[in-house]
């Protein structure tokens, strides 16, 4: 009986596998639910290579793609490190993760990989903005119809860009239609759900792209398992001044106004007292959950929760900070400024106070595209955003960043810095961080400054 391989909801069903091969394929298991041998779809490459190695003939019903030429429309001269990255990736059998800072040309590298791999390709991106950005780039270089999955589009072509969320919906049925998978901002891939976009597809060739492979949960190993090992890496400081703009990071410690300080202190005291009374330790793994649970159970708890929110809000968005924003913006007349906040409320508060465009996930696609386009063209010189611009979106014209508030995440800050560092002639980027003096924000700031990108910075 001939061996057959078929694709079934992110897995492979294998029939008539000879007994002597089975011990060599550790991922193939007997499924008593359906009475067949089964393997996760991402093992397709290993299984096929093993069968070929043992000169066993098989019928492949799983693979629903054929080699496909993707000639590049206009000439690309890769930068030296892009050429090196391409070589390193191919040397690893066209699998692996490339780590390059934001603005170093990861998309161009991907275009070269698509051209040389010659297989239908699915590009995964975390946001709709990035999906449109990739669409434009692929359209420009290949000049063929490019499919989109996400943001209301459901069109599949040999070259398709999908958001991770949409790819997840499709992978169980279409995970056998692409030979090359590209994962942009691939540090997302080991996430509890996103990993199935890679696990459930048969693509034998894979490329992971990121500026920051580190994950706070330490699951980088899963990234390398799903995309292939790290094959090339350049750090932000290695490219500064050559490929990336030179930059400064300036931290401004902001003194709260007396009245606000008073409200802050009393709200914080109320919150701290509640923690003490209830014996809640926020440094414990489930401290936050216990706090939330307790605050629901009594009037005092509800007040403590309100107090917690109030002190957080004041420290992150005091009126004193708003004054500093105004001063900085005045100081940087004629510059292109991005203002980052921790959440949407704050972004809208600033937008309403100063009459500036605010870009959040609530901004609809049409207006979002319009805002970004106007910002790039200089029709708008200021853009306020919460987190939607953290990743990937190209705004090379921006040269000043103001972080009004943020989390302790190193990645978030390196990425925010990355928005400003796309090289342009004569550009010198500045990133301001506004920190409320003598508040918990100070420690949050300290945590995120561990990254090498922050080693040269000043505090005012």
């Amino acid at each position, binding site marked *: 009986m001939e061996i057959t391989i078929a694709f079934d909801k992110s897995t492979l069903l294998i029939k008539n596998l000879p007994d002597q091969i089975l011990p060599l394929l550790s991922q193939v298991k007997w499924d008593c639910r359906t009475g067949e041998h089964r393997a996760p779809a991402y093992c397709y490459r290993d299984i096929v290579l093993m069968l070929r190695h043992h000169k066993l003939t098989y019928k492949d019903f*799983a693979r629903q793609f054929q080699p496909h030429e993707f000639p590049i429309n206009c000439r690309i001269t890769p930068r030296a490190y892009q050429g090196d990255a391409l070589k390193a990736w191919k040397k690893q059998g066209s699998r692996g993760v490339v780590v390059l800072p934001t603005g170093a040309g990861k998309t161009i590298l991907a275009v070269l990989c698509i051209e040389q791999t010659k297989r239908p390709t699915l590009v995964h991106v975390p946001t709709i903005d990035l999906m449109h950005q990739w669409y434009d780039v692929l359209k420009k270089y290949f000049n063929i119809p490019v499919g989109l999955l996400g943001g209301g589009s459901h069109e599949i072509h040999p070259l398709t860009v999908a958001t991770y969320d949409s790819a997840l919906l499709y992978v169980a049925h279409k995970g056998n239609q692409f030979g090359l998978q590209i994962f942009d901002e691939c540090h997302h891939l080991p996430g509890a759900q996103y990993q199935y976009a890679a696990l459930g597809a048969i693509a034998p060739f894979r490329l992971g792209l990121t500026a920051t492979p580190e994950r706070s949960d330490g699951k980088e190993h899963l990234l390398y398992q799903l995309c292939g090992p790290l094959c090339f890496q350049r750090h932000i400081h290695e490219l500064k001044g050559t490929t990336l703009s030179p930059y400064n990071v300036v931290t401004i410690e902001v003194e709260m106004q007396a009245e606000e300080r008073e409200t802050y202190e009393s709200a914080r005291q109320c919150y701290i007292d509640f923690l003490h009374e209830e014996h809640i330790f926020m440094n414990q793994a489930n401290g936050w959950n216990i706090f939330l649970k307790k605050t629901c159970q009594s009037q005092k708890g509800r007040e403590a929760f309100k107090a917690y929110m109030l002190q957080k809000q004041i420290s992150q968005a005091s009126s004193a900070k708003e004054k500093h924003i105004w001063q900085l913006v*005045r100081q940087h007349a004629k510059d292109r400024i991005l203002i980052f906040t921790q959440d949407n409320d704050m972004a809208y508060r600033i937008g309403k*106070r100063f009459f500036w465009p605010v870009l959040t996930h609530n901004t609809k696609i049409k207006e979002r595209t319009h805002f970004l386009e106007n910002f790039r063209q200089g029709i708008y010189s200021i853009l306020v955003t919460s987190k939607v611009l953290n990743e990937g979106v190209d705004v090379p014209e921006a040269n000043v960043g103001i972080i009004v508030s943020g989390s302790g995440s190193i990645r978030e800050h390196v990425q925010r810095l990355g928005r400003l560092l796309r090289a342009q002639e004569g550009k010198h980027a500045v990133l301001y961080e506004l920190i409320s003096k003598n508040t918990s924000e100070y420690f949050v700031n300290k945590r995120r400054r561990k990254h090498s990108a922050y080693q040269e910075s000043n505090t005012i």
Partner: protein
Amino acid sequence: MLTRNLIRYKIYRQHIKPQFIKTDDQNMLSIAAQLLEVFQNSQGKTRSELLSESKLVIEQSNCNSMITSGLEKLLLDRTKFNTDTQEELLNFRQELFSFTSELHNHGNFQNLDTYYQSIANKFQKNISDIQNQLYSDHPLNQPVSQFKPLSPERLLHRYNCAQVQGLFIHCEHLTIKIVNPDPAHLRQLFKYLRFYQLLAQITELNDTSGFQIRIDGPLSLFFQTQKYGINLALFFPAILHQKEWQLTASIQLKNRTVPLQLELNQTCKILSHYNHFMAYIPEEVTSFQKNFAKKMPSWNIQPSDRLISLPGDTYCFPDYTLTNEIGLTVDLELFHAWHSTPLIYRLKQLEQTKQPGLLLGVCKKLLKDPAIANDIDHSTYFKHFGFFFRDMPTVSSIKPVLETLGK
């Protein structure tokens, strides 16, 4: 469904127990009714107005705010908001931002007051009016367009159901024991199972009083995964239709090294919000039955409520049962375009049997999948007991198979 922060549960030893509310508790019913009233009268109000009204009920209720916020969340899930943005507002924003950018580019940002004055002059409006208009399409300002009502008692049942579903999101697999099953209910359960793309391993109980069904997804074979948690959560209300059942689920919460056991049975008395879809018979099905009765009078066709045992500890719930005048009974299972995986499994199971108890009707669209085309091509069972149809089977497509059987 409820978010994790609204799920109430207790953990003791390795067990997790959802904290249900009493659905006949007068206090709870009254709170539910008050919240429902707020939502039922919300047409045209903004999200912010709606939330502040429901907040008032929540704060005055004297009930654990996790419960009241949970009820509010379930009602919000049934509320639709108008999210359109008027073209006029888009144009206004565009004009305003171009103007403020111009002021910035020309270094005309002096003090805030003169800046506000320039804007007010340009748009001939009070600055606070401009401020209010600027982001008036923000989600908090969106008006309610529709609310799907329900009774206070039903809301409390939905809440209890959502408590279990919220934990099922973190479920790796679940096992149900169904005792003395009603075949029609069991059949419906398996339809839901198939609909939510889950896989089951079914074993008959030792005393043959029912079945034990272990449910997870295709990839569960390889690693512990919560990938199918959402499918299992959506599947849960289907279990509630069974009369006598016991359930054990393995729940893996974050920050916990070992999975927790959730146990539940019919005494939880949660009412399912899923309909019995057995009651609905599509028109094409009725017309197939009518035609069949007309053109093949020697055979009687009825929707099936049978459960057939197949090789390898598996079971099948056929769509129809056909009986002819001499008492020969056969079952018919239909595989539509969306049933590719069940068909692959079924062909494999039937390879080992030669008993012609089950006829297979296969939609031609399934042949587009080369794996299925190959399996059908190589299936001797299908050659004898299978037939193809386009959208719905016709009498002419099934007739040759029945005639062969008759011989």
